[in-house]
């Protein structure tokens, strides 16, 4: 694998779930490639944005089915990888941060041990070395007193700190790609910005690629390099984040218009009228 091969290639990705009335397609032919950049995937609930993120790690729960013409990480076919190979890739090469640290952390284990464990699983380092690395990582996500936080249980830390701990745990094996699914949506705005700054720095320092799944258009536009806008399982538009305001698809334009803005006078907001043609576009 050469270093200029794209980090991730996705072609015609489809995710479907069986229902009483036949297969329901959550993702319907999504294609993109990802380099060492921050790619935002934006959409409303049910757009398939989270399923797109999960299917890369083959984390779509059965009976859901994932198919793609190509799903490759640094040239390696992920759909053909053995379960054993996938366990190597998950965490070590591709990591994932979910929305709410309350449900992602083990409640009966100190946060330090959880982070150290994440390191030992992938590096076979000794306990002392793992602890040292875990403390370094806590410092890297700007936790002021790593020694003290190391001994805490998840219920003893705030939401913002919990999410930093999750990020520390996900980044300690030094992955090439981070999939972050609404990583800051449960946090207050100021804490959200601080956590994003940490992710931003870690991306640029380590040359890591990132897929940032979010419903928040303005946040993605200000944080990512490039954006895919999803609607009903398809990518309806992709653009540079800095050019989101010039988006052309009526769905994207409708979403942008429906956002209230601090600097606009009060008054009725334009309401999105959904065009059936968007389902095919």
């Amino acid at each position: 694998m050469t270093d200029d091969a794209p980090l991730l290639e996705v072609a015609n990705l489809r995710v479907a779930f069986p229902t009483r009335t036949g297969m329901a397609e959550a993702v319907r032919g999504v294609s993109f490639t990802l380099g060492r950049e921050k790619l935002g995937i934006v959409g409303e609930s049910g757009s398939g944005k989270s399923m797109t993120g999960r299917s890369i790690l083959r984390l779509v729960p059965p009976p859901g089915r994932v198919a793609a013409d190509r799903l490759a990480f640094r040239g390696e076919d992920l759909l053909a990888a053995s379960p054993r190979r996938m366990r190597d890739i998950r965490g070590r090469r591709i990591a994932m941060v979910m929305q709410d640290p309350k449900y992602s952390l083990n409640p009966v284990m100190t946060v330090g041990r959880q982070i150290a464990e994440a390191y030992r699983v992938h590096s076979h380092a000794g306990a002392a070395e793992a602890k040292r690395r875990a403390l370094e990582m806590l410092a890297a996500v700007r936790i002021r007193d790593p020694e003290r936080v190391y001994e805490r249980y998840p219920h003893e830390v705030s939401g913002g700190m919990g999410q930093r701990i999750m990020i520390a745990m996900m980044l300690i094996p030094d992955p090439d790609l981070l999939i972050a699914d609404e990583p800051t949506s449960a946090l207050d705005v100021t804490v959200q910005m601080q956590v994003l700054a940490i992710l931003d720095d870690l991306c640029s320092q380590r040359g890591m690629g990132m897929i940032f799944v979010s419903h928040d258009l303005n946040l993605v536009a200000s944080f990512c390099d490039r954006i895919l806008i999803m609607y009903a399982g398809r990518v309806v538009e992709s653009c540079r984040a800095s050019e989101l305001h010039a988006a052309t698809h009526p769905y994207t334009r409708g979403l942008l218009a429906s956002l209230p803005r601090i600097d606009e006078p009060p008054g009725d907001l334009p309401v999105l009228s959904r065009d059936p043609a968007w389902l095919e576009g």
Partner: protein
Amino acid sequence: MMIDIRDLRVRFGQGADAVTAVDGVTLSVREGESFGLVGESGSGKSTVLRAVSGLNDEWTGRIAVAGTEQGPKRPKGFYKLCQMVFQDPYGSLHPRHTVDRILAEPIAIHGLGDADARIVRVLRDVGLGPAFRFRYPHQLSGGQRQRVAIARALVLEPRVLLLDEPTSALDVSVQAEILNLLRRLRAEHGLTLVLVTHNLAVVANLCDRLAVMNRGRLVEEMTVEELRQGAAREPYTLQLLRASRGYDRATAESFRDYA
């Protein structure tokens, strides 16, 4: 004054574990006004609302609604005057009751009579046709459920509507519909609105005036016009305004904790 709050204090817990959630808040809302109460989690904004609504009876200070001094327990008539809408329309509607039964209950409790006509009228009012009357919550989208929750509050024809993050659980396109609905209802029924939210843009869209809270205290009060011009006086409010403008590496670095 429709709502007058003086030196409101709310404490949770006992002894050393006691937490002061609301620490001496004084504010008033005029009749017909739309007032925003803004803050981050733990600021006490929802606790103020719950004390006003009668959901929390462990408070000290003075709360008057429509000129009547309120005690910890509220008489039935209070709820005819003042109703509340909650954040999560998935949790706030009884899953085994039809929309009809959800709306009929407050009418029966208050002995208003003429339930049939009231239900049809209030459903039309919130933009749901009569077809929705005999559906269950799980047959409705999030936005439709929030319309039912608003209808349930409105069916008693209250003068005050207390709204706790009414659009935070909804997609932005649905949020726009609910904000437009609340604006229309306020105009048509002359409602007084108190809106608790963390979202400054929602306040800018729906409110006339707002108060910013942090750690149980009221930081400052301002008009929405001042908010729009960024004319906040307190550094905490200015930081909140900067954070609402989206991600910026340098701005994120400048954030600090305000006690």
